[in-house]
């Protein structure tokens, strides 16, 4: 894990002091709200429906034990005892006071956390694979490059006032767990024929009211040239991106209007003029960052743990958990454990202080002190000995975090929606809960298999509805909440944008509609097909007919 040194720590102290000064000036009336708002946003502080909300950055979704404990303490001290993990691998607190925000930032800085660039028209937290460093699938550790991007993008002077926000994802496995193709820039690590590392660079993906899948503008960017190339992309965007209309200001609109080929040509032209010696990271610094991610403490173990196999055979609940939440680690005898924050009566992505502290304790005992956050609003304990799995499972059960539903129908992404968010048109959380309630039968959920439901409370699409196998978008129709369903989206390596099923449904109709969609799938599926595969094979019509029965 990357450890902050004195330089990183002093930087956070300076940032925290700067914000304290700015809050003081606002409270004293020296700054107007118009002047202050962008400053508080650049420190992750929003004004929502009921209170301020503070979004804390979790760089590429990686946390250590002390950090999780501190988040639990902040939730208890300054909030109502819980935090909400977001679809950008961050955590947000929904009941924060402006007066407390400087103290909270100080408390975060003590454990190397901050809220820098969790909002505003700047480069946001880099998304990466929550299984980085643990999965055998990756061709390189994406955290190395994510950390390089974190440093490069932090208070980047030229790119702090972009036309609009800017999100970068780094993935290194064939299986994409970062939604790279719906980021402003998606970077997929590739290995060249000569063994060198490079990136496939995809630009212009995004969701919101005009969703796009990112297009490849460079098949193989030598990895060591990453920062100069990013500088070129950002410069072209900063100059040419639209600033007259907030809905057309993202890079996806620029790429779409120029065409990916022309955009790529302009980037190449700009890139050719950049002094690589100034812009690219020296090999020594890359080596320093890389060394920080070498995982110490992995023991040499037999590939199979007999005690774990026996425990699984004796305990059906553990066996179910193992089927759904446990996957292979690169090291023999180890496993990667997904911790679901989607218990059936819970708010998707929420964890209370007791749960956070329990996670920290369990990670300390069983996962080499490493905790990850997924963009699907779950947590991961990446380095667990198989022989520790039964004890870990019991520990998770004790705090209600052993829900065995990863990737299943009740593992739903939902934004905070109208219950909290000032931008939302409709609620998302109760809809997620009503669907989870409908699929309480764990055997049936397993029978259905992988089914990604994603719910957004407005067109900004924080709940990633465009890329849900079933997407649900909340809209406001004459003061009432309605929900528009889409089918066939995917945010993974087979990325696609969902298509609208039909007229909007009211809140009570959504869960029954999902049930009908699932029934169609179960009746039609062939072999190992997922819901998404069946939809892609048979098309919209059978699903549509099942949900909308016309009175002809």
């Amino acid at each position, binding site marked *: 894990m990357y450890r902050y040194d004195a330089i990183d720590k002093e930087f956070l102290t300076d940032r925290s002091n700067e914000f304290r000064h700015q809050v003081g000036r606002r409270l004293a009336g020296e700054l107007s709200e118009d002047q202050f708002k962008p400053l508080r946003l650049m420190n992750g502080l929003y*004004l929502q*429906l*009921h209170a301020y909300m503070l979004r804390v950055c979790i760089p590429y979704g990686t946390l250590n034990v002390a950090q999780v404990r501190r988040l639990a303490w902040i939730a208890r001290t300054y909030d109502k005892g819980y935090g909400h993990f977001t679809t950008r691998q961050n955590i947000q607190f929904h009941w924060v*006071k*402006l007066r407390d925000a400087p103290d909270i930032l100080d408390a975060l800085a003590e454990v190397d956390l901050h809220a820098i660039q969790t909002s505003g028209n700047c480069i946001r937290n880099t998304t990466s694979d929550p299984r980085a460093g643990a999965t055998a699938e990756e061709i390189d550790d994406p955290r190395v490059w994510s950390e390089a991007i974190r440093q490069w993008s932090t208070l980047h002077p030229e790119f702090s006032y972009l036309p609009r926000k800017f999100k970068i994802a780094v993935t290194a496995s064939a299986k994409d767990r970062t939604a790279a193709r719906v980021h402003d820039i998606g970077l997929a690590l590739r290995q060249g024929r000569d063994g060198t590392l490079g990136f496939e660079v995809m630009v212009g993906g995004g969701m919101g009211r005009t969703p796009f899948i990112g297009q490849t503008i460079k098949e193989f960017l030598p990895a060591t040239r990453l920062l100069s190339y990013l500088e070129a992309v950002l410069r072209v965007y900063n100059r040419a991106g639209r600033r007259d209309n907030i809905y057309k200001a993202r890079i996806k609109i620029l790429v779409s209007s120029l065409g990916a080929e022309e955009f790529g040509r302009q980037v190449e032209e700009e890139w050719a003029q950049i002094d690589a010696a100034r812009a690219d990271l020296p090999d020594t610094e890359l080596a320093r960052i890389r060394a920080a991610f070498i995982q110490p403490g992995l023991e040499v173990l037999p590939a199979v743990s007999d005690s774990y196999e026996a425990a699984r055979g004796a305990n059906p609940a553990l066996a179910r958990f193992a089927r759904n939440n446990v996957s292979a680690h690169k090291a023999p005898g180890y496993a990667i454990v997904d911790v679901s924050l989607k218990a059936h009566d819970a*708010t998707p992505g929420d964890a209370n202080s007791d749960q956070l502290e329990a996670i920290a304790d369990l990670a300390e005992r069983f996962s080499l002190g490493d905790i990850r956050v997924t963009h699907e609003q779950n947590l991961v304990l990446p380095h667990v000995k198989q022989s520790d799995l039964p004890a870990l499972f019991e520990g998770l059960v004790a705090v209600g975090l052993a829900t065995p539903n990863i990737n299943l129908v009740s593992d739903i992404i939902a934004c905070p929606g109208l*219950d*909290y968010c000032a931008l939302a048109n409709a609620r998302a959380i109760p809809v997620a809960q009503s669907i989870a309630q409908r699929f309480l039968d764990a055997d049936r959920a397993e029978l259905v298999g992988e089914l990604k439901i994603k719910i957004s409370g407005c067109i900004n699409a924080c709940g990633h509805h465009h890329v849900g196998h079933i997407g649900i978008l909340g809209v406001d129709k004459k003061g009432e909440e309605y929900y528009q369903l889409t089918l066939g989206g995917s945010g993974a390596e087979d990325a696609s944008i969902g298509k609208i099923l039909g007229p909007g449904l009211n809140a009570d109709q959504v869960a029954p509609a999902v049930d009908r969609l699932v029934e169609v799938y179960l009746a039609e599926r062939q072999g190992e097909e997922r819901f998404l595969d069946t939809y892609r094979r048979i098309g919209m019509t059978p699903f549509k007919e099942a949900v909308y029965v016309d009175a002809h």
Partner: protein
Amino acid sequence: MSAEFLKALTANRLGEGDVVFWSGGQWVEQFADAELFTEEGPAEAAVALAKAQPRIVVDAYLIDVTRSDQGVAPVSYRERLRALGPTNELGHGKQALGGAAIAALQAASGAARSTGRLDLIRRK
């Protein structure tokens, strides 16, 4: 529908972020205590006074209010949530106070929810 002019003035406190309502020159915590404006002139005058308090509140604006058998309530669902708190955590926000006024607002809130009016789904 009557075209009655009925509005309340709301904002969030600058230092805390709490939802507040205007009542005779003061900010109060509960919607039930909010001043109701039945004419545009006094309503706009209150907005002007509120906007002159940038160190006390942020974002002051008028909301539409409706009268029904259950009492008065904000018209929009968003404003009812602001007046009550989130529906996924009934112990959080203003609804935690409980009492008759909150219960009335919750009842009004329930009435505003969609009730299957369109009847789009029927069993085959």
